[in-house]
């Protein structure tokens, strides 16, 4: 039995008061290339098992790998975005181990010569605090096939009757990004871990190197965690929780390991260096295999491949073509839009940056765009439990709606009815206004008739207003608005009423 099962969990708050957590995160991202890392097999999600294969990705006798140039370019893009140095020359290496999902019984990876190294990335936490994570290396490798264990209750290999292997995934290009020890996160370690992976995910998407869909396993994280008694103490023994594949799980896995390791240390026991599995259902981790020196991958330089030596010109070309990264973009947009820090943070957290940018591009003011997306639209998205971007209204339609309000053709209240129409698929705001007859009544003649009717119906109020008390005038205005079905401009009605009464 391992120590973990014999010691209790320490509450997270207590644990981080007495121990300093140190993180180390390995992120694997599947590159969105058309073909695999070392052969021309197509890469497409969800194909029939073992249809996207060649002699190379099946590891057939005689087959040889050839490096996918696009994958190298993507790896360089990632390296540059993470402020890494790009190697002038680097080699692939063979990582030798026997497992049925590795068709050659070695994985072609990079060992002591990664394509990118010594970088960093700034990670923004939800409250806007910025945490810098240092990157040790980013290297290229190939994915393994996918095992399915059939029979048995757990879907795991133990108790299974037989296992199936799908080699469609074998050979898909991966870039593995390894951080240096992440120190100083303190109690915010879970949040930093999550934000780091989220930042990488956003970068992958912005760079166009991967669809980076967590739920498809495009991005997979292994989270290393150790505790020490103080920030000055040497690093403690770490555990590696494998394949934590959602942002929330990353946060939970870190919290759990902090609590668990604190319990082990409190009991005076050593933390065992091992890989651990994360359990989605209760957020716990459990012991996997013990990592010891006995595990010998017998790395040696891959003799079937020549070194990858990206020319400096090419690297600079790629650097020049890098798109603006998410953090830099957010900073630029905030300055352009004049939002306060808190406002911008809310916009980012609501996932409304792109929507607001597009709405502004369609002619709306920054304040107007924010008012819609963070107000009425946020409310409706929440009510319907959908993401903002999934509402059936476009930024261009919102811009048109706002312009209708600003030109006085409709008022705010009508605008919400127009939005109803747009969301119901009745077309653009203009079309909805016309079809529903919602245009503001701005014809004074029509209004005066309604006002005269209202005044005649409520002589007592007319008297009070004449007497100098403007308070009750609202009742008259209300009657007029009711008579015009809300389509009158309330401000104009008020002017006309007061004028009529003679005030």
């Amino acid at each position, binding site marked *: 039995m391992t120590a973990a099962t014999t010691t209790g969990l320490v509450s997270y708050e207590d644990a981080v008061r007495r121990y300093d957590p140190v993180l180390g995160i390995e992120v694997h991202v599947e590159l969105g290339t058309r073909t695999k890392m070392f052969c021309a097999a197509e890469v497409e999600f969800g194909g029939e098992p073992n249809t996207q294969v060649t002699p190379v990705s099946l590891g057939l*006798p005689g087959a040889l790998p050839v490096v996918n140039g696009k994958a190298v370019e993507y790896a360089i893009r990632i390296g540059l975005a993470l402020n890494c140095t790009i190697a002038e020359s680097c080699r692939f290496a063979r990582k030798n181990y026997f497992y049925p999902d590795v068709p050659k019984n070695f994985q072609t990876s990079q060992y002591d010569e990664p394509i990118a190294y010594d970088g960093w990335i700034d990670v923004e936490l939800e409250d806007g605090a910025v945490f810098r994570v240092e990157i040790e290396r980013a290297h290229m490798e190939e994915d393994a096939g996918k095992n399915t264990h059939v029979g048995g209750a757990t879907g795991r290999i133990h108790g299974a009757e037989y296992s199936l292997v799908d080699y469609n995934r074998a050979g898909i290009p991966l870039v593995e990004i390894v951080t240096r020890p992440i120190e100083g996160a303190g109690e915010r370690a879970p949040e930093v871990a999550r934000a780091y992976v989220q930042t990488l995910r956003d970068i992958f998407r912005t760079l166009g190197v991967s669809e980076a869909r967590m739920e498809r396993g495009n991005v997979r994280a292994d989270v290393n965690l150790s505790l020490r008694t103080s920030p000055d103490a040497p690093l403690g023994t770490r555990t590696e929780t494998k394949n934590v594949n959602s942002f929330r799980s990353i946060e939970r896995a870190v919290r759990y390991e902090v609590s668990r390791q604190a319990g082990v240390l409190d009991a005076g026991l050593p933390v065992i260096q091992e890989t651990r599995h994360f359990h989605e259902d209760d957020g716990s981790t459990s012991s996997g295999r013990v990592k010891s020196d006995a595990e010998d991958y017998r790395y040696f330089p891959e003799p079937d491949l020549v070194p990858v030596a990206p020319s400096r010109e090419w690297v600079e070309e790629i650097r020049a073509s890098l798109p603006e990264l998410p953090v830099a973009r957010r900073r630029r947009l905030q300055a352009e839009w004049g939002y306060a820090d808190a406002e911008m943070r809310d916009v980012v957290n609501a996932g409304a940056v792109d929507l607001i940018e597009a709405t502004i591009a369609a002619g709306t003011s920054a304040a107007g765009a924010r008012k819609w997306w963070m107000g009425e639209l946020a409310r409706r998205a929440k009510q319907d439990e959908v993401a903002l971007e999934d509402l059936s209204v476009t930024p261009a339609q919102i811009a048109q709606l706002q312009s209708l309000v600003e030109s006085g053709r409709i008022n705010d209240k009508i605008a919400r009815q127009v939005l109803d129409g747009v969301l119901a698929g009745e077309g653009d705001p203009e079309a909805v206004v016309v079809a529903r007859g919602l245009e503001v009544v701005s014809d004074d003649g029509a209004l005066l008739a309604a006002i005269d009717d209202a005044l005649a119906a409520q002589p007592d109020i007319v008297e009070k207003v004449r007497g100098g008390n403007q308070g009750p005038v609202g009742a008259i205005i209300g009657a007029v608005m009711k008579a015009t079905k809300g389509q009158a401009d309330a401000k104009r009605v008020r002017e006309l009423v007061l004028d009529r009464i003679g005030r």
Partner: protein
Amino acid sequence: MTNDLTRLSASDLASALAAKEVSSVEATQAHLDRITAVDGDVHAFLHVASEEALETAAQVDARRAAGEEVHPLAGVPIAVKDVVVTKGLPTTAGSKILEGWVPPYDATLVERIKAAGLPILGKTNMDEFAMGSSTEHSAFGNTKNPWDLERIPGGSGGGSAAAVAAFEAPLAIGTDTGGSIRQPGAVTGTVGVKPTYGGVSRYGLIAMASSLDQAGPVTRTVLDAALLHELIGGHDPHDSTSIDEPVPGVVEAARQGASGDLAGLRVGVVRELSGEGYQAGVSARFEESLEQLRALGAEVVEVSCPSFGYALDAYYLIMPAEASSNLAKFDGMRFGLRVEPAEGPVTAERVMGATRGAGFGDEVKRRIILGTYALSAGYYDAYYGSAQKVRTLIQRDFAAAFEKADVLVSPTAPTTAFKFGEKLDDPLAMYLNDIATIPANLAGVPGMSVPNGLSDDGLPVGFQILAPAKADDRMYRVGAALEAALQSRWGGPLLSQAPDLKTTELAR
């Protein structure tokens, strides 16, 4: 025109085909008949592809009849070493672990052979996974040396060499990791060429040691080797290590060399590749060949390559290290033999173990164990790392030697063909067969073996010519000149002195 089509060189047969004096079907059938007649004894072939070969031959004949432009070697039959994958033809690499496996794809060199219209007669025997110097390590029985059926045909490509020497094929493909084309050539009186590393695509060669393996021609004449070299050589985008340059003008060099003028050529005799350990008859023939080269106008100089003394040691670390990884894929999971453990649970790991235990022969296991050890943490620097340093020193020795000489020469193998079983239980003695051929593989330079006479025991001896990387044409020039001079002295090819093989009556 001899009545026996199997006695023609490939170039003469090609001329006869081009002149429509014979058809490819006739030529192919003649070789298939010869295989039927003698291969019961010689056992050069593991698989004979009669139907497919005749079909290709008929297609070539039809194309020729229709006046189509065809490759100069179109219609000339060829044998392919069983380590090269051939779509639709069984490919075993001489191992039980691949028995019955039929590859779904062709090696690049096979694609080129097929595109040029050479009928493939079949697959030739070899030491298992090309590990050996006698073909005794084949899982499917010994190939006999046509000069003496009691003796080994060399290895690992004993099948290809014996097939060519026994007139079962005019051309064959071999592979050479430490001498497996050249040493069988020497002991069977045939020509064998290991091109510059990267000169011929390795795509579809079942790898032993990726950084050393190279495919090349096995023939009876230097010109035939050049013709085949030109066909299979050249860049292949499927092999990252293949050279992206045109094939050196080997055919031109062979034709030019046959004129016999070597004036101005500097021939370097490698001091470390002669003397002790070389059979007297081998040394004597070597000296006579040097005299012959001088007579043709060459200047013979002595060069020293001191690091060659460590070549065998370095080779037996690098080769097994790479082989241990290359052979990991043979695990019973996807293709080939699958053996379930006799008792206990049937897990993937245990099936892999049982399959490899049953499927690999002793020599293969020996090398996998050696290589696994050499790559292990804590030993890597001392073994694999040191061996790579020796490799660099050997490359420097070659570079220095090629400053003093245009080509380097030595005996190809220290002895003539030995008897079956003589060295089977002494791996180190077996490994010494490759002492002269291994340096070229470690440096990636090209090498050729040309027959240069018979030793005192009446068995053939080979003369090795080495050239700088990508200067393969140089050794063709020298080889062709020596061949022409020796044959005029002998009054014909060396192989015409080989004893007649007993033939089995055709049942046809």
